[in-house]
């Protein structure tokens, strides 16, 4: 059931949880914390979570948002799951390159390729 106050749009396709952000700017600490909590609930609800996060509507994010993504990555790995990121705007992708987080995350140009990459 969709939650009216959720910061996420969530779809389930086969065994993959596909998450999109409601906000264009992922900057406010309270929003980032809420996003982290909502995604953690999704991860905890699956034995070996396969999570795809799409950034198609995102224009800006902060280092705090990157921190939440890292926490999500670590939690999924602990559970033996898989995380993919997709549809990242070139300006934001540069932030991943500068921080070298493009080496930590598996990032795909589009959702279709990301979906196919799940084992």
């Amino acid at each position, binding site marked *: 059931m969709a939650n009216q106050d959720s910061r996420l749009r969530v779809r389930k396709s086969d065994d993959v949880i596909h998450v999109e952000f409601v906000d264009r700017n992922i*900057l*406010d*600490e*309270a929003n980032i914390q809420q996003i982290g909590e909502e995604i953690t609930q999704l991860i905890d609800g699956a034995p070996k979570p396969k999570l795809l996060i799409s950034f198609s509507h995102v224009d*800006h994010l*902060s*280092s*705090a948002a*990157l*921190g*939440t993504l*890292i*926490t999500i*990555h*670590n939690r999924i790995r602990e559970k033996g799951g898989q995380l993919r990121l997709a549809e990242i705007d070139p*300006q934001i992708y540069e*932030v991943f390159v*500068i*921080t*070298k*987080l493009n*080496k*930590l995350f598996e990032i795909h140009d589009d959702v279709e390729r990301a979906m196919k990459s799940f084992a």
Partner: protein
Amino acid sequence: MPEKQPSKPLHESVTLRNDPDEIRDAENKLLRAVERMGYSSASAFAVRLALEEAVVNGFKHGNRNRPGSTVKLEWSVDPDRIRILVEDQGIGFEPDQVPDPREPENLERPSGRGIMLMRAYMTRVEYSKSGNRVEMIYERPSSD
């Protein structure tokens, strides 16, 4: 019709409370000045990112989220460069002591990327000796 580029530098000084709407309004005011002065969207992206990180650091690490604490923001935008000054009420820190988040052993740590991003996107980032004030300079790139 596009707005005429101002002939004089635009500037402002404001004391911010730790209120998301107040911070967002102040950021938007600077970004409007950046846009009015004819900087590109890539420059605006860089300024927004660095400003966001500096203000968040000021409240979170400088003021340690103390209730009622404030952060001072001063900026000026002229045709060639943008200057941003952010000052918190904390005791300061040694920026050189912050570990490089790009090192393999730090890559999975969720925090510690703010200063590195500020340095990456600004032309110059300098902390005061006391460590509670940062001055950031962005020079207009030739591509703008």
